[in-house]
């Protein structure tokens, strides 16, 4: 059931055998997706693909009829393919919302990792010919490719690939959802969202993370702008090509009234029709380029989330430290009897009289406990922070390398597309010129 030909145009698909686009051109350079060199154990075991998409109808949560699309995930053991026996792959159907569930789980469970993004939920940056309808077959096809890309990204990540929930997503059709909910991640998910959206001031963020956050913002902004501009240009280019189709029609009609000019006009007209038709393929290829850009637009969001998480842990550390400091100060004041910091208690006790030594004793004891606990907390938080910074920075570096490689490949593939478009144009107009000269 698996396609004999490799799945079309997944950006930087990390299959060991797939060469990058520059290879297919002329040179013997072999540039491989750097992930594969390190090679996760998961990918060494199995091949993963999202092979098909299908429409289903069913009852939703509020018992209403709905139509939705499901995607077929196929997995196959790697050695079987190399043996050449080609057995039937294992497969199961998942819908987009289950992918979303998986991703949310990963976000919550691995806040220090830049989690690969899903393809867009709704079609954005659409130009007029493209449909914004989720049920449109072209959209579904591009989503299928995007989902496959997502799974491969996760499967090739050194940490994410060994996640159990991810594995069962790929292999266990029934009961997977329950398994996920059992992890209790939902509660963490809610608090995470809240925290990410909260406003707080961090005094000492790690400079690198601050810079990364800023970079993420810039990347998001510039890619959005690029996608917008590109979509508008695509729209216009479509118009230019299609209007040439009118030449075809009129030349044909005109050729009917001419004697010597007739043949030349007629055949030139055919080439004009071909020219007009060629834009469909050209722009379809450009959509794949747009999809590659979109992936990194959404990646920017994931990057930003990691930086925010760092800020959060840093903030919590700072809060704990601050709390500890104030508690220590209170102890000092209580011990020495001097009030250095303003406290309501202090004022009221001044107004309404001092406390008894027993009360003071009790208070001091409580403070001591609190300070002990506070020191533990600070130590914990500090460790957390350090741990977070360490692991997150490793992943950010990995992400940077991946991004530089992938986007460079994307630019190269864009250039190749432009070249292909130019070659088609040269051919058509040379043909037309020949026809015109015979007029």
């Amino acid at each position: 059931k698996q396609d004999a030909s490799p799945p079309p145009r997944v950006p930087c698909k990390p299959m060991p055998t797939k060469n990058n686009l520059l290879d297919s051109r002329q040179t013997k350079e072999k540039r491989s997706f750097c992930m594969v060199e390190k090679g996760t154990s998961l990918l060494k075991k199995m091949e993963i693909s999202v092979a098909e998409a299908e429409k289903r109808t069913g009852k939703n949560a509020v018992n209403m009829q709905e139509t939705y699309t499901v995607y077929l995930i196929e997995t196959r053991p790697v050695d079987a393919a190399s043996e050449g026996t080609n057995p039937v792959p294992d497969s199961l159907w998942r819908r987009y919302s289950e992918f979303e569930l998986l991703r949310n789980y990963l976000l919550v469970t691995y806040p220090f990792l830049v989690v690969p993004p899903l393809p867009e939920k709704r079609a954005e940056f659409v130009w007029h010919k493209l449909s914004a309808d989720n049920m449109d077959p072209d959209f579904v096809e591009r989503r299928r490719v995007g989902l496959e890309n997502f799974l491969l990204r996760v499967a090739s990540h050194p940490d994410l690939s060994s996640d159990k929930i991810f594995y069962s997503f790929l292999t266990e059709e029934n009961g997977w959802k329950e398994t996920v909910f059992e992890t209790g991640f939902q509660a963490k998910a809610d608090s995470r969202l809240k925290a990410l959206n909260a406003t707080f001031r961090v005094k000492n963020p790690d400079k690198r993370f601050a810079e990364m956050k800023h970079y993420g913002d810039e990347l998001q902004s510039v890619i959005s702008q690029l996608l917008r501009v590109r979509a508008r240009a695509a729209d216009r280019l479509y118009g230019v090509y299609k209007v040439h189709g009118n030449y075809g029609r009129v030349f044909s009609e005109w050729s009917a009234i001419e004697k010597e000019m007739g043949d030349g006009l007629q055949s030139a007209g055919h080439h004009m029709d071909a020219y007009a038709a060629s834009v469909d393929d050209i722009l379809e290829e450009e959509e794949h380029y747009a999809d590659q850009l979109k992936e990194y637009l959404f990646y920017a969001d994931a990057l930003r989330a990691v930086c925010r998480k760092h800020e959060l842990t840093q903030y919590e550390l700072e809060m704990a430290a601050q709390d500890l400091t104030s508690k220590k100060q209170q102890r000092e004041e209580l011990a020495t009897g001097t009030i250095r910091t303003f406290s309501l208690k202090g004022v009221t006790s001044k107004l309404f009289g001092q406390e008894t030594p027993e009360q003071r004793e009790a208070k001091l004891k409580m403070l001591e406990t609190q300070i002990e606990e506070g020191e533990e907390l600070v130590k914990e938080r500090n460790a957390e922070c350090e741990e977070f910074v360490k692991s997150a920075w490793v992943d950010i570096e990995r992400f940077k390398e991946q991004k530089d490689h992938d986007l460079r490949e994307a630019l190269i593939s864009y250039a190749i597309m432009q070249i292909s478009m130019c070659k088609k144009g040269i051919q058509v107009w040379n043909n037309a010129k020949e026809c015109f000269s015979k007029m």
Partner: protein
Amino acid sequence: MSGSVVDNTVSSGNSSVAIPTDISGQILDIDEDDDLEVFSKDTTLSDGSSLNASMQTSSASMINQYKFEEEEEDADTKDIFVTVDNPESHVTAIETYITYRVETKTTRSEFDSSEFEVRRRYQDFLWLKGRLEEAHPTLIVHPLPEKFVMKGMVERFNEDFIETRRSALHKFLNKIAEHPIFSSSEDFKIFLTAGSGELTSHKKQGPGFLSRMGETVKAVAAAVRGVRGRPQEFTDMQEYAEAFSQKISSIDKVTQRIVREQKEYLEELKECGPTYALWSQSEEELAEPLKNVAGCVDKCCKETEEQVKHLNDHLIPVLHEYVLCADTLKAVLRRRDNIQADFEVKTEALATKKADRDADSKVLSLAWDSLVGRSPEEVKQQKQQKLKGEIKEMRDELDKVEDRLEWANNALKSDWTRWQKGMRTDLRSAFNDTAERNVSYYEKCLAVWESFLQSQRTDAEGNGNVDFS
């Protein structure tokens, strides 16, 4: 639509002459001038020294004048070169107008010198066109650019408009110069050579206003009546003219639409380059390829701009000329029809008169005559004499019109063929150029992107960054 097509239903200004005065001059010239390629290779006219303006020549020999040979307009045989350039603005109390320099270089002996330089304004071109049409109502005069501004233009004298007009005027004069009949026109010669004062006084000559009016009234009457027995070939031409008009207008519109869409595409594309450049500022490793891509996109923008300009400056004006030509074709056919209608009217009138003559003499009103005291025989004689006289006049008139009609038909047929050849050459060349330009456009863009790929390849080899395994 066009203010420049003078739909001159005034039949040849000199109605008493079968041969327009222009040609008569040339007939005399043939002796002195061996430039026979311009006319026909027919030698029957070579002893035309005894000919004068009043036509006893049969139509048959006149027809030969219009046999335009195939090989005529070779570049080697071209003996007159006309250029229109150097527009200059003139401001007077009443108006502002533009004049153009018209330079002529020629070896023709009817010109006093071999080089001329004059300044002419649009009105002068309009006058020349009118004169040529008057003299040769069924020959096809190449159109002039429009009199009035086209919609969308703000100012009458903006640079593009002036250049477009200059180019069209240049083409107009060259078409005249290439035309075997027109290029020998006296008006044409004066247009090319006369000083402005001389030109003004020459313009004042020509058939008076009243006689023109008289002709027009007659022509309108004939036009209203319509032609009855139009030969099939002219009906075919009519159909062709209609169809051609439609097709060429469509192509004109399509081309204009393409230009519009290209311009809008260009506007969007212009924003792409700067966006890539902006992005490169946030990147380290990617900065170089991004800047490179930005440069490539900008270069493609430049190429697109050039390509649009070429369409605008070369293809569109030619298409536009032929849209106007289509109208000229229809006008020429109309005028021919009017001449034929005139002929038919006069034929009918003559037949009626003859019928009158042959009518029974009993019809003559004897009653009145006996009252007057003349004998029936006398009256009959008088009436017969009168009729005979009238019939002779009408016969003569009819002969002239018949000649004119035959002349007009042959002139039209020959010029039609000539025009079609010219049209084919012009349009083929224009489309060919456009296709070539488009190929060149894509080739240049191709080179831009290939150089980008090249740079990325050498870059990759240079850095140790990428893992080649």
